[in-house]
């Protein structure tokens, strides 16, 4: 650890929100084709204050407030991307992105294919996802798994400061549409980030904690819960590995299979609803790739299958919690006395 710190002595104390803002700033400075567009991203500074100060720095041509019409401004983003720009489109929450589903799924994801390879859509769409802030069923769902179903787009879920800072530039470099899902509960997450942190790869899952007894497989807003659960499991003598998927489409199949092949057990933690979810897809891949390595059935910890409740105690009851992850993992490993 100390050796590692010596190699990168310069760190800054920052938040996920600031890391994301720095990523946007950096992109705006490095590439004149990049601009940010969305509801309240300019004068208001972004609904989650991610773009605060950017209008003053870059002006209204590059920080553009849009009318309240997701379909229109995502469509405009697709057109700008086809015309040679590198737009970053911000949608307030994934719930609202459903109004732009036609643009994302029927246009952005298909134009390269349907134009016979003539038109790439180098578009990046950022949106918040997830619950935990008492924003109720209008703003709190986790639908990124739906987007992960669609060929033609990439789906990212930055869960760390490094990924918040580094995924955007790599996404902008990608010639095809990339969706970035920022879990709303992460914006205030604080931590140390290398002063020279930059672009990161978006192709590989990351082992956030190596372990040998079981794999906790997760992404985005539940990574912190999985890490906390791993700590508590370690106290109980169970050595859990935590795999952060980072990218939901395309899934890093090898990382999943490798991890479970080593640990022989898996718990998938996903804030989405269980039925027809990304957790179901991961479970299927584990079965396909590691059946003869499995020492126990794959388990999932997901959200209650109900619209997200508003009251705090009900919202907590509906969401995956550390205690449930720990219980599930302990039941899976069995008695060890």
């Amino acid at each position, binding site marked *: 650890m100390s050796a590692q710190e010596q190699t990168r002595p310069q760190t800054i104390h920052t938040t996920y929100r600031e890391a994301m803002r720095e990523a946007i700033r950096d992109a705006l400075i490095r590439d004149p084709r990049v601009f940010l567009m969305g509801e309240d991203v300019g004068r208001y500074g972004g609904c989650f204050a991610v773009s605060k100060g950017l209008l003053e720095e870059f002006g209204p041509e590059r920080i553009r407030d849009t009318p309240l019409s997701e379909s229109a401004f995502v469509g405009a983003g697709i057109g700008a991307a086809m015309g040679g720009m590198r737009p970053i489109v911000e949608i307030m929450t994934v719930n609202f992105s459903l109004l732009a589903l036609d643009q994302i799924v029927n246009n952005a994801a298909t134009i390269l294919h349907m134009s016979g390879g003539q038109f790439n859509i180098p578009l990046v769409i950022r949106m918040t996802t997830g619950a935990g802030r008492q924003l109720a069923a209008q703003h709190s769902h986790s639908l990124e798994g739906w987007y992960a179903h669609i060929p033609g787009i990439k789906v990212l879920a930055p869960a760390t400061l490094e990924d918040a800072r580094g995924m955007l530039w790599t996404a902008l470099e990608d010639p095809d549409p990339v969706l970035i899902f920022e879990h709303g509960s992460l914006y205030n997450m604080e931590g140390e980030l290398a002063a020279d942190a930059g672009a990161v790869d978006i192709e590989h899952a990351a082992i956030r904690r190596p372990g040998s007894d079981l794999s906790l497989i997760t992404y985005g807003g539940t990574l912190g819960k999985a890490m906390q659960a791993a700590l508590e499991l370690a106290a109980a003598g169970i050595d859990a590995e935590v795999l952060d998927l980072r990218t939901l489409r395309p899934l890093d199949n090898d990382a999943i299979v490798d991890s479970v092949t080593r640990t*022989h057990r898996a718990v998938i933690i996903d804030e989405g609803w269980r039925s027809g979810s990304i957790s179901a897809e991961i479970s299927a891949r584990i079965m396909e790739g590691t059946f*003869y*390595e*499995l*020492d*126990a*059935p794959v388990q999932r910890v997901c959200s209650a299958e109900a619209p997200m409740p508003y009251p705090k105690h009900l919202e907590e009851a509906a969401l995956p919690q550390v205690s449930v992850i720990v219980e599930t993992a302990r*039941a899976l490993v*069995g008695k*060890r006395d």
Partner: protein
Amino acid sequence: MPSLGADIETGTLVQWLVKPGDRINRGDIIAVVETEKGAIEIEVFQSGTVQSFAVQEGDKVPVGATLALIATDGETPAPPVREPVPVVPAPSSLRPAAALPTAPAPAAPPAAPAAKPASAAATAHLRISPLAMRVALELGIDPATVKGTGPGGAITRFDVEAAAKGKAAAAPPPPPPIATPSPTPTPAAKEIRPAMMAADKQAAMRRAIAAAMARSKREIPHYYLGTQIDMSRAIAWLREENLRRSINDRLLYSAMLLKSVALTLREFPELNGFWVDGAFKPGDGIHVGVAISLRLGGLVAPAIHDADKKSLSEIMVSLRGLVKRVRAGVLRSSEIADATITVTSLGEQGIESVFGVIYPPQVALVGFGKIVERPWAEGGMIGARPIIMASLSGDHRASDGHRGGLFLAALDRLLQNPEKL
């Protein structure tokens, strides 16, 4: 163990369907035996009371071995059988008890309560993870002896490894199963080792076919005859006949072909029977074997008994039943063993003629191709007629081409008078 057909020398008794003390009647199915040809139901030929079993479930025994003692009506029960049954060693190490070649089969007293072999425990699946199963096989641990600590009491790798450590630590190995009173495989162990895996079965069937066919070509001097038969009258008659029948009772022309072969054979007994020990032995009836191909490859030719005495409707019913049981892998011992001739029809595959290989120890095989429309001259006129190619593969030791030719001609004549069927 009854004869289960040419080149099948042993069978594994998979399940007793009766128990000592049961009253049984001639024709009852009393057991299921697994062979290279699939599961075969064993019929009994005496009525009486089951006295005792000489063979336990899971035992592999040669054809001819005593399976059970039956007290026929009026007979006082004899003392239980004591002679050791020659049990063929099973290849798996997972069933040490049943595999011991010298284990005598102790007979339960006739009045003993049903020692039900397929108990609830046997049908309950062993809860073991795929990994633990693999490790158990690697370490040579019988999973049925391992206590599970995983989810829902499932056996995990940890449990198997713990059991392996315990086994290594225990000083002497457990006493040989010969000392135990009942060498019955433990139900759970049986559960995890199916009598024969599907792939093994395929390979075994292929070997059985290979052996039978190689023997046929090695030993039987085949002669081959073929003739084209005008089917227009037979088909016209069949169409009329089917109009009178409900959909379920309608006849297929293959039933007519089988019946006509059976009837014609009455006049040609030298084609209906077996070549054994250097001499022809006529069949005790006309039992027509029907070659039925299996979906996964291979074929069997179970018999329709006394096909010459059955009506077309009865043949149709038999044929449907045979195909169904063949596909389900369950045939009766008498069906598989005693066909006196075989008929093969490859018309469905689109071929016009087939010259088959005789299934030993039979002495003839009749083949049919598909019905095709062909120009046909009759009475100075040419017309389009449905034609089928009938062939005969004959064993020259038992019959000559002259008689074979007469057989095909008689078959043709019969098919020109379909109402006689």
